[in-house]
Each structure stands twice: as structure tokens, then as C-alpha cells.
């Protein structure tokens, strides 16, 4: 196995569980703790590991209110920098969770999370639509999240096997 294979293995493990202890990763990948730490540090330095986040099903949190929307945005690309400039203007807003350049009927897909629906309305009408390059927006509200980042929210992961088998 090459160093790169080991890096990929570490990344896959961390992608599934970013809280996985280095000692366990080391044992699973057959590396020493020092080697594992070094590879993780290298990948953090190179921004291969861009951050560590936690996937939370907020709907299960008492009294929490929040709304997610996906907005299709048509824009006019800027000479020299294409879509990058307008994308940056959008992703800098803290309520924007994700921005993707898309092929097809629209150009940018913007994922936004806010406290209320009117907060999202305000963001779209005051901030997004008023950007010079933005031609049109279509806002879709998320009604329910079934699966996100590969995790099934309502999944039942009980072990259905009997206790001892041949």
C-alpha cells in the first residue's frame, strides 16, 4: 500500500466519523500513531481535510427552529473570472451553507439555512437578487431531510442478527 492509499483510507474513515481517535485509525490502517498524526497534519495543511463538522438532525432538537432552502440562481458571468466572482459574493454571506456551479437550467445552486422563512425571503430579495450579475432566482424550501451526507436521518441501524450464529 502506498502513502497515498493510506491517506485515502484515513480520509474515508474521518469522513464517516470525524471524532474517530487517532489511536484507532492507526490500528485499523496498520500505521503507528505518529505516522497517522503526521499524515493527518499534512492533509490539514494541504486543505485536503478542509474542516471537521458534525451532522445534526436539528428537527429532533427541542425548541429549535430553522429553515433550509435551495435556491437556483441564474447569473451573468463576469469577463475574465466567469462565475467565480459572483459565486464568491454569494458564498461570503454567513447564512449560505453551500454554493455549487451547475450545468443545465441555471448556473448556481445556493443552499441557505436561516431561522425563519421570512429571513430567507429577506436574504433572497434584499441580498441575492440585488447583486448586479444575478438575473433570476427560484427558491425551494426543504420540507423534510431524509438523508444528508450519506447518513439516513430516520435510519434504523439496529443489529437484526441473532446473538450467536455458526
Amino acid at each position: 500500500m502506498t502513502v497515498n492509499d493510506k491517506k485515502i483510507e484515513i480520509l474515508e474513515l474521518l469522513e464517516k466519523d470525524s471524532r474517530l481517535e487517532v489511536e484507532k485509525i492507526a490500528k485499523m490502517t496498520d500505521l503507528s500513531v505518529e505516522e497517522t498524526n503526521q499524515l493527518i497534519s499534512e492533509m490539514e495543511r494541504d486543505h485536503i481535510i478542509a474542516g471537521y463538522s458534525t451532522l445534526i438532525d436539528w428537527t429532533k432538537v427541542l425548541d429549535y427552529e430553522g429553515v433550509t432552502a435551495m435556491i437556483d440562481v441564474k447569473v451573468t458571468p463576469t469577463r475574465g473570472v466567469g462565475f467565480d466572482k459572483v459565486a464568491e459574493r454569494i458564498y461570503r454571506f454567513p447564512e449560505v451553507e453551500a454554493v455549487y456551479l451547475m450545468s443545465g437550467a441555471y448556473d448556481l445552486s445556493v443552499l441557505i439555512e436561516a431561522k425563519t422563512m421570512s429571513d430567507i425571503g429577506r436574504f433572497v430579495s434584499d441580498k441575492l437578487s440585488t447583486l448586479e450579475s444575478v438575473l433570476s432566482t427560484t427558491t425551494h424550501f426543504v420540507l423534510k431531510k431524509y438523508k444528508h451526507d450519506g447518513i439516513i436521518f430516520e435510519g434504523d441501524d439496529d443489529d437484526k442478527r441473532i446473538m450467536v450464529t455458526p
Partner: protein
Amino acid sequence: MSPSSKTTYLSKTVEQLQPSGIRRFFDLASKMDNVISLGVGEPDFVTPWNVIEASFHSLEKGYTAYTANAGMIELRTRISAYLKKKYQVDYDPEEQVIVTVGASQAIDLALRALIDPGDEVIVVEPSFVSYAPAVSLAGGIPVKVDTDPLQQFKLEPELLEKAITEKTKAIMLCSPNNPTGTVLSKDELAAIAAVVKKYDLFVLSDEIYGELCYDEKHTSFSQIPEMKERTLLLSGFSKAFAMTGWRLGYAVGPSEIIKAMTKIHQYTIMSAPTMAQHAAIEALDHSETSVQEMKKSYRQRRNFVVKEFREMGLNCYLPGGAFYVFPSIQKTGFTSEEFAEKLLQEQRVAVVPGNVFGRSGEGYIRCSYATSLKQLDEAMKRIRAFLQTI
């Protein structure tokens, strides 16, 4: 004979069969709460979704009738192509492949097709708990050959040769092995093959864990020169594709034996479940990525568990396949049964005592690592705590 003289209606063969030692542990463990089970001989993954979907689709299409006795020809063709790709051995899907209800049924059919009363079949131990009883049920005599723990439980040709008599007809082999995880290399298989040829024996090669080899490519016994004609390759979908509950296996080998097995199958089982056969086609056609992902996860967990046992001071070799580790508990002074029972009572961790797989398994425990890392981690903590109290 007076009408009341019978004490039992049971056959003597069945009466003499011992209940599996695994069953006793299941009964003990299932009555307790908060047990972490390392006693499970099956994947913790659910069957890949595309495979489950294929069975839904087959039902929606109305495929609810019997298939051909030997299995759907489409599936037999896929099995043949899969083995050709994996091992470069050719099997005619029409004549040399039979689809069975799990590899267990393939073992039963094979033994019934081969054995006459009194024939001896060599069972290499530690072994899967069903082999010896299956030989007895077929009317044969299981002759147990112990393997040496210091040789990682690999069958040494000299030991095999010593067990052969004029009545020996066949050998049951299993690589990767349940319960030890031991994988026999091509050279080791070739050495066994030399003995097989010398005494004109037949081999039942259980290769159900063949996809789960972590360090080297799996060698099938049928790949060894001149062995294809005297080998029945037994396998199935349970372990590689996480399909234990679908009960689908197969056997490939010489036409006359497959034909004989099909005859018995036709009179006993008729055919394997149709929706499971449709699912198996999808498994062979489109599940390579899922199999590789599961395999990768097993390898990581194997590495983790072996290192943990070694850190605890228990001798544990690195098994090359399946999803079991077989650490030695000899230094604790307990027998395998005592160790497993105390561990279960005191720390609520279920493992299987090695002696249930044969006397050479005494002093060892079988731990399946086909369970989540979280569970494995907790189990290792509990075993560590248990060791500190004894």
C-alpha cells in the same frame, strides 16, 4: 416385538448427533441484557440495496414460480463467468453448476451424492460445526484431523496422510477458514493436492469466504493443476454479498457429481427460492463496489482487533481471511468454555469457545469482527477489564 417395546422413534444417527456447542452459548447470551456479541458468523452489513431492489422487481414482474432444479440458467451462467474471471477455471453452466439453498445445502448434497455407508471423510479441525454431522447424516464416518495452532492451523500434508485409510473417500477443506480465518496459499494447497492425488481422493472445498481475503489473492482448490476434476467448489452469496438470510449457495464441479446432486435436490428441495436467484444475478452483475467496501471495512476492523488482543497480552495471529480472529486464551488457565462463559457472565461479551470447532480449538476463542467499530471498541474494553480481574 410387542407394540410398546420401542423407546424412541428417532434414528440412531440423529440421536447420536451432539447439539452444536454454539447453540448453548446462544441460549445463555440471549437471556442477558447489554450483551456485545462477537459470536455472530455473518456480516453486519445489510444486503446491498440494488440487490434487494432486484428481488422486489422480480416479485413485481410475477416471478413467483419454481425455477429449473439446478437453478436459473441465467444465474448459473453468471456463476460460471464469475469463477472464470476470479480463478480462470471453466465450468459449464448447463452441466457443472447447481444453485442450492445456501452453501450448507451444497455441503449436504455433495456428501449424500458421494458417500456410501462406512465411507470416511476427513474433516480438518478446527472446522465449521456442520461438517462432521453432515458426514454422519450422509451415512459416512467423519475422521477428524487436528491442525497445529503454531502453524496458524494450516493443514500439514503429513498429518493428512496419516489420517487416510482405505475407506477414505473425501476431504472437507475450508479456506479462508471458519473459525480461524486461516488462508491456505497456492503452495500449501498444492502440497495437499499431492496427497489427494496419491490416494485418489475427492475434495469438498468450502470457499464461502473466498471474497474475504485481505492480504493475498484467494486461491481456489480447483485452480491447482489436475484438481478441478476431483474438486467440488462450494460457495454462496451469504458472506461476500451480506446475504445470509437469502439462503443461496452453489456448487460447481464434475458433471456426474453435479448431476447426482441435482437428482437429490430435485427430490428434496426442488429448487432454490426464485426471488433470491434474481437477487443473486444482480449481486454478481453490479455489486463489486459494495463487496470491496465491505471487505475494506472488515480488513480495518481485523487490524484493530488483532492489535487490541496483542496489547492485552493474548497471542493472536493475523488471520488472512473471513471475519474471525482466533486468539489464544491459554495463559489465563481457563478452558475455552470457562473463559467464554465467565466473560459472558461478568462482562457481557459473547464469544464462541474454540473447542466447539474441534479439540484443536481448545484454548482459543472465536471472535467475529463483523460488527461496528463502536461495538468492537467496547468489547475490547470489557475483555481487557475481564483479563485484569483474573
